[in-house]
């Protein structure tokens, strides 16, 4: 009844069914840090790792010649390694606690947009430049050029201006004071946004998730790979980003999030 494979599969399944509780990693990190601090920088006791009885100790990870008495490495003060360890645990702790999270730069990837949240840096300056290969076209021409279906928000009506850029990767529709970029390729990074507090707010557009970014922020267009074109930086205003099937959207220039959401949901 049992072929070798069946039996091995049974063992694997048994292993997965075993109930092996582990404490939360943050607790472990805290305990490890406490132990490292307790030992203190002067502790220089020989590591008391018990060699496995049937193992050649010199082959083991703790016996690779590190810290053999009399070896040259002995000269490296031990506290440095301990400091490294403490720093590593601190990094683990900082990343795990809510207080710590605020102090660490965060990268949020969503719908072809990489949002870097950090201490606010200076916003890009200078004249806004067009996207690579940006050309003004009619809506029907844009529909022929773009590699994805183009939808228009019924709430805003016909756009006043339509532009296609980067070989049909991005189609931008313009209304007075409002701009909507639709872009192909939500799996690669098409835009980078740099912002500080407040954090973007998660919203729902129709049935899909989206993010609302309140304040002005740095916006960088990352041209499709392989091109020689440079990235394009500018300051962007409040923006709603969302995704619909494989097309990513960003709606910029509508200050009220509820209104932006309504516009986004009116894509036809």
């Amino acid at each position, binding site marked *: 009844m*049992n072929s*070798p494979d069946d*039996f*091995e599969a*049974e*063992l*694997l*399944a*048994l*292993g997965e*069914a*075993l*109930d*092996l*509780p*582990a*404490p939360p*990693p*943050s607790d*472990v*990190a805290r*305990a*490890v840090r406490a*132990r*490292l601090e307790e*030992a203190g920088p002067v502790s220089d006791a020989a*590591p*008391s*790792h*018990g*060699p*496995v*009885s*049937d*193992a*050649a*100790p010199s*082959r*083991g*990870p*703790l016996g*690779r*010649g*590190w*810290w053999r008495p009399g070896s040259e*490495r002995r000269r*490296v003060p*031990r506290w440095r*390694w*301990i400091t*490294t*360890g*403490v720093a*590593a*645990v601190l*990094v*683990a702790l900082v*990343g*795990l606690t809510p207080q710590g999270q605020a102090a660490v730069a965060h990268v949020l990837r969503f719908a072809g947009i990489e949002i870097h949240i950090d201490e606010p840096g200076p916003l890009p300056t200078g004249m806004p430049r067009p996207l690579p290969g940006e050309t003004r076209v009619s809506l029907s021409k844009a529909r022929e050029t773009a590699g994805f279906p183009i939808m228009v928000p019924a709430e805003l009506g016909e756009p006043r201006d339509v532009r296609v850029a980067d070989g049909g990767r991005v189609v931008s529709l313009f209304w007075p004071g409002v701009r909507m970029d639709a872009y192909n390729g939500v799996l690669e990074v098409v835009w980078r946004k740099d912002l500080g507090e407040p954090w973007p707010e998660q919203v729902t557009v129709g049935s899909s998730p989206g993010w609302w970014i309140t304040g002005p922020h740095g916006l960088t267009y990352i041209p499709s790979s392989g091109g020689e074109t440079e990235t394009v930086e500018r300051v962007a205003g409040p923006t709603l980003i969302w995704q619909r099937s494989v097309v990513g959207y960003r709606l910029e220039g509508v200050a009220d999030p509820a209104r932006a959401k309504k516009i986004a949901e009116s894509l036809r």
Partner: protein
Amino acid sequence: MLVARYSAVAHRTAALLGAGDEAEDVVQEAFVKAFRHLAGFRRDAAFKPWLLRIVANQTHTTTRARGRRGELTLRIGAQPELRVPDDPEGAVIATDRRARLLDAVRALPEREREAVVCRYFLQLSEAETAEVLGCPLGSVKSRTSRGLARLRKEVGRELS
């Protein structure tokens, strides 16, 4: 970062190698040692088996210190995949078979048990197992196959 990433597998390893109630202590001590010996870690080596070797060593130290063989104090957790509403009898038999298999693993000679635990319960490769247990690759192969043969015999006999 290291703790966050490897805490779960380290606890699993300690428990499966017989640390019992002291698994948490073993894991914390192993992390302390790992941090102190990070310099001895070769950049080109895989971190997980290196850390697990320390966990395995620490488990041995702890279990030897308390003067008894590392016991496998394990229990089978919730098994949602076994709940077959249409076949409660079959589910009971499967659960029973699992319990017997676990007993048989527990009863294996220590070296064979460790090899089987690493290969199947921790799902490590033969090379990783060799590094964690600190023995040659050939020993891993022979201990695993001896252990498997023994298990097959035990479980098969009980069911027949």
